[in-house]
């Protein structure tokens, strides 16, 4: 019985070490620029200690799940590390989540505490007899608000936590197989599911990504992505691990404000997603000094090759990383920037310390040029879905010989002769038109070649003659662009069977909370 914990060594063993080791090594360095405040590593560490002491006082113990329902903020950062310091598992819920889904997540993970924005409607959640989340023992509310009436669970304001609880570092209780976080994936169908990451998964994945990005302590990273999205979350985790400075913003809604911040803070790293780059590309950037930027990264969905080229022209001094991943393995592939000229359409090779290959449906490993499902092996392969053994069994399989846990990504790729990977489509995205297999991405790439096109989504719709007909949804900045012109462009660049039958113009496309185009909502 009992467990024995590792002492913090040179290599971080638990995620809390990212903050604590940097706080011990660089106490007075600015760790976080957010909400108009500049906090040193010591200040963030002490704030997180106080949150941890409050949670421990609530009765939160090792292995409990504690949820955060906050916009990107100082409190969210202190909350994440406070939860880890209390030995618990953190669950970041997107702040735009509606009440039903929030309740679903809190109940699904049986959260014992919640750290939420004070404006959250907690009616029925913390007061009254009903107690829809029966395990909930306490709640920390951030921002000014009156205390809820008749609370049945203990509610503290964040200010009280800061004033009343000591900045004492709690004892280490975890081993690296304990869960560090559940990341609920938006999922284009069905209820969200919580991807389980243990401490070892996070420490490994963060270290591997830091290695290929070449991050150093002088890096200043700006994050406009929500912390509920693993890509946004890892900006925080990685920056604290390598002892850099994180500039944390709520969103990219006001691009000029973000560009100004890049200039003021001399930001070196900018993580983006395709929709965000689509906003940035048509902008006149001459009013901003962006010379501090060292690298841009893209993931979540592939960036059209035409956008990659335009970005490189716009930011000639900047290194561009095209990447691919899914929450189930954090990051999977990245393209070394030196390869970008030769293979602009590729998302590269497995991240350092991992392996990936392609299989067909019978489990045969494929040769270069063949298309098949991407399979991933490494310490970044997450532990599965929280209390969903059937879904876990579908996505994660055990290698019969070595006993390794492998991730079957459900994404189709092909490789070139040198082993670089090219995304083809989601396995269930493939359109069968005229008996031919159509990868929507290929058609989307061609339509993106029209300069004024901002976003494209291609789907298959039932057609009595073709089986499925190809339909393209187009968002354009040019109101004079016609269906005819788009079709003519497609005919000039695609085989006949790949040319869409219908073009529909939209002012925007439906998105998941993480900004991926939600094709299931298009018909």
């Amino acid at each position, binding site marked *: 019985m009992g467990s024995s914990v590792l002492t913090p060594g040179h290599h971080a063993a638990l995620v809390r070490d990212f903050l604590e080791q940097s706080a011990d090594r660089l106490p007075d360095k600015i760790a976080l620029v957010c909400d108009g405040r500049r906090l040193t590593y010591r200040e963030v560490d002490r704030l997180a200690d106080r949150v941890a002491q409050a949670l421990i006082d609530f009765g939160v113990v090792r292995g409990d799940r504690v949820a955060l329902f906050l*916009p990107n903020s100082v409190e969210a950062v202190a909350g994440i590390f406070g939860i880890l310091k209390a030995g618990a598992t953190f669950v970041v819920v997107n*702040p*735009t989540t509606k009440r039903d889904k929030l309740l679903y997540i809190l109940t699904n993970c049986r959260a014992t505490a919640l750290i939420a924005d004070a404006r959250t409607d907690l009616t029925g959640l913390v007061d009254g007899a009903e107690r829809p989340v029966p395990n909930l023992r306490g709640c920390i509310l951030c921002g000014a608000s009156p205390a809820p009436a008749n609370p049945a669970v203990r509610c503290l304001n964040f200010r009280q936590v800061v004033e009343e609880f000591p900045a004492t570092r709690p004892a280490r209780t975890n081993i690296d197989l304990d869960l560090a976080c559940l990341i609920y994936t938006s999922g284009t169908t069905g209820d969200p599911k919580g991807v389980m990451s243990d401490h070892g998964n996070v420490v490994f994945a963060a270290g591997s990504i830091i290695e290929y990005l070449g991050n150093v302590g002088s890096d200043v990273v700006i994050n406009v992505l929500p912390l509920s999205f693993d890509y946004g979350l890892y900006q925080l985790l990685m920056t604290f691990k390598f002892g850099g400075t994180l500039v944390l913003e*709520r*969103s*990219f*809604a*006001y*691009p*000029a*404000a973000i*560009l*100004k911040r890049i200039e003021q803070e001399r930001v070196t790293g900018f993580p983006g997603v395709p*929709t*965000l780059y689509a*906003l940035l590309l048509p*902008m*006149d*950037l001459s*009013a*901003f000094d962006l010379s501090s930027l060292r690298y841009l990264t893209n993931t979540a969905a592939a960036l059209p090759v035409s956008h990659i080229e335009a970005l490189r022209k716009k930011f000639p001094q900047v290194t561009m990383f095209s990447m691919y991943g899914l929450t189930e393995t954090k990051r999977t592939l990245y393209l070394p920037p030196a390869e970008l000229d030769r293979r602009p359409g590729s998302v590269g090779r497995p991240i350092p310390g991992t392996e990936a290959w392609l299989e067909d449906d019978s489990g045969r490993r494929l040769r270069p040029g063949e298309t098949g499902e991407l399979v991933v092996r490494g310490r970044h392969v997450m532990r599965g879905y929280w209390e969903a053994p059937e879904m876990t069994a579908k996505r994660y399989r055990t290698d019969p010989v070595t006993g390794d846990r492998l991730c079957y990504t459900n994404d189709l790729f092909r490789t070139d002769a040198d082993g670089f990977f090219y995304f083809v489509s989601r396995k269930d995205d493939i359109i069968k038109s005229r008996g031919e297999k159509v990868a929507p991405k290929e058609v989307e790439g061609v339509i993106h070649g029209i300069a004024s096109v901002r976003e494209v989504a291609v789907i298959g719709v039932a057609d009595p003659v073709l089986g499925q007909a190809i339909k393209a949804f187009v968002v354009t900045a040019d109101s004079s662009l016609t269906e005819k012109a788009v079709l003519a462009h497609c005919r000039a660049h695609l085989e006949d069977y790949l040319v869409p039958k219908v073009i529909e113009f939209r*002012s*925007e496309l439906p998105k998941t909370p993480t900004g991926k185009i939600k094709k299931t909502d298009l018909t």
Partner: protein
Amino acid sequence: MSDTKRDLRNFIVETFLFGQDTGLADDTSFLEQGIVDSTGVLELVSHLERAYGIKVKDEELTPDNLDSINALAGFIAGKRS
């Protein structure tokens, strides 16, 4: 000025709040309340350009200019003067 504010409020409520005006104050931050995202800001800008005949420059896409009804009204007045 108050006419402008009323028109702006109507536009925000119709476009981003599905017609539900629930406690939108003149100084409510669109961003903090989750009323607009990146696409929303672009929609807002094209509305300003169409309805008020002004041209919004890229470097003017900041919360100071655009993030509340008050900010918008001030921004439009400044552009017109």
